[in-house]
């Protein structure tokens, strides 16, 4: 069985990224959009890991970055869910189209 190379991983990462973007742009449900963001973040994580492993194998910078991103993603999810709960309380809905009036 063939060892997966950098290109394979980048391909998966790109696929994940665009799936995430597609989901973010098309879904109306805020929870689903949050999940799409997680996909995008994870595609970035994959990129960091892959570049670290294949280009600078002796270093750990990419790994640290990934860890940071995971931590931030967790915090971001907590904040986002708090926002969504508040939105639900005031609008009785978590549909993103109902949140349009927030621009005022």
């Amino acid at each position, binding site marked *: 069985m063939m060892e997966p190379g950098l290109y394979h991983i980048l391909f998966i990462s790109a696929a994940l990224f665009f799936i995430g*973007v597609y989901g*973010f*742009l*098309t879904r109306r449900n805020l929870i689903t*959009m949050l999940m799409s963001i997680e996909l995008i973040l994870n595609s970035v994580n994959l990129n960091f890991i892959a570049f670290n492993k294949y280009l600078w194998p002796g270093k750990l910078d990419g790994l640290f970055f990934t860890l940071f991103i995971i931590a931030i993603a967790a915090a971001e999810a907590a904040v986002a869910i708090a926002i969504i709960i508040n939105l639900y309380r005031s609008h009785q809905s978590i549909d*993103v*189209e109902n*949140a*349009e*009036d*927030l*621009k*005022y």
Partner: protein
Amino acid sequence: MPNATIIALIPLLPLAGFLLLGLFGRKIFKNSSGLIGTALLLTSTILALYTAYEYFFVYGKVDGVYQQFIPLKLTWLEFSPGLSIDMGMAVDSISVMMLVVVTFISLMVHIYSLGYMKGEERFPTYYAFLGLFTFSMLGLVLSCNIFQIYIFWELVGVSSFLLIGFYYDKPSAVAASKKAFIVTRFADLGFLIGILILSNSSGTLDFNTMIATLTSPDSDAVKTATASSFLGASALTWGAALVFIGGAGKSAMFPLHIWLPDAMEGPTPVSALIHAATMVVAGVYLVARLFPVFAITVPAVLEIVGWVGAVSAIIAAIIACTQTDIKRVLAYSTMSQIGYMMFALGVSKYGGEGGLGYTASMFHLFTHAMFKALLFLGAGAVIHYVHSNDMNDMGGLRKYLPVTHITFLIACLAIAGVPPFAGFFSKEEILLAAYQNNMAIYWIALITSGLTAFYMFRLYFSIFWNKQPEVHGDKHGEGGFVMMLPLVLLAVGAAAAGFIPFGEFVSTDGKALESHFHLRFSVAPVALGLAGILTALWLYKKQNEKPVRLASSLGGLYKAAYHKFYIDEIYLFITRKVLFNLIGKPAAWFDRNVVDGLINLTGNTTQAVSEGIKKIQSGKVQQYAIYFLSGVIILAVLFIYVWR
């Protein structure tokens, strides 16, 4: 040396009265305001008389020549060394003479108004305005700096505006005050430009330095200013002529006189003070102040001064013969007499015997202030009694107003130049000066003096003789002691002022001038004056058809004079038709379409653009994400393929 405190108090006391009555008059001094104003002015008058005595008889004369003293000079605004606006006091023979005239006439008017304006609702305001005017006029005559005189010049303009429009609920008074202000302001524009030109040429705003610089023909300033010319006249000529335009506007000289007859809408004592005795002679005073410059450096302008004065004198005299409003007759008479003063300056020369015209002009200013104020106050008493300005409503009043009748007669004799009343002496000197220097002006002046006698006695006979009076319902008499006293005092002045040997006190160079009195010379003017009086007697002593028949036989001339030679109409035509259509309307069009159009274009563009781009902010999170994504993609493409 003059005492600076005493002289400074003369204008400052009326100012204090203005502030006191203007600020607190309506609440605290509602009833006492008249007495306060009068008391302050009485003090001023006494100080002025004291100053005059001290100047003329104690310290003024050094080696037989009256000197100018500057007891106080404060630099108010300094542009550069030498060029500064000072607030100071110049004490010389004409300013001291004017101090006496202004305070005395103003005091008379203050006293008279106690009776005339009694019961007026804005009584305190009236006295406050009188105080403001007196202060400004005294400041004007004391000015030692041409810019200082300009400041006070505008102040007297403002007080005149306020007092003409005193009855502000009367539309005609409002219109008259606006007219007076705009016409004189228009002339003052010339004055200001003249000041700038003269100060630019001489490098100073101080009167003495300016006169000294501009009258020495060898100085660089004069050479430069005469070398630079504009429209065929040198800069100095233009400067002096423009200053004279300012003076002509204030002094109601033809063709800037149109405001004076309308200014009679103000209370009658105000007309006596401002529009007969003091403010309107400011123009004469200004020319006299700068007389050395006019006489030595720019004699051409002095020639203009003479002709403008002569033309004004005769035109006003002709118009005065046809008017029926007594105050308007007096207004035109004032204009005519100021014309006399102007051309007397115009025919004068600087220094020695040639300066007779200058002395005569100041003399006439002095005597005219007396008898013209008296005429106005007398007219005020008549109007007070009849409640009308129109001659046709009057007649036979001599039995009802005996004191007014006698004093008015004295004033009429004085203005007609009948010896030995004041007007005779001053007019005589003016005619003599004209005779020596300019025959054409002399003839005009001679005819004018005949006309003067005629229209004054036309007025006199129409008021006091002519038809029998209708019985007036209210027999309130002549207005009591406060209205009689000024009339009597002024009548004494009008009768006796002529005996003052004026030439000894006022002359171009300060040296005493012999008074020339030729019996033979005075035959012609006195004869003409008597002829005028007799004509008036024949026409107006008894009510008859002669004046009407005479008027219709004169036809066009009478009609033209009755309509004041259509000068008002010409002004209206020029402003309404010519200026409005040729300049006003195109300018308004340009403003409305081009200037406003540009501003509106900016506004409309901004609005249209923001209208277009406001849809970008939709509130749809996913739309924002798309913008963001497309931006990133574009940047990525650029970074990868273009800016490698």
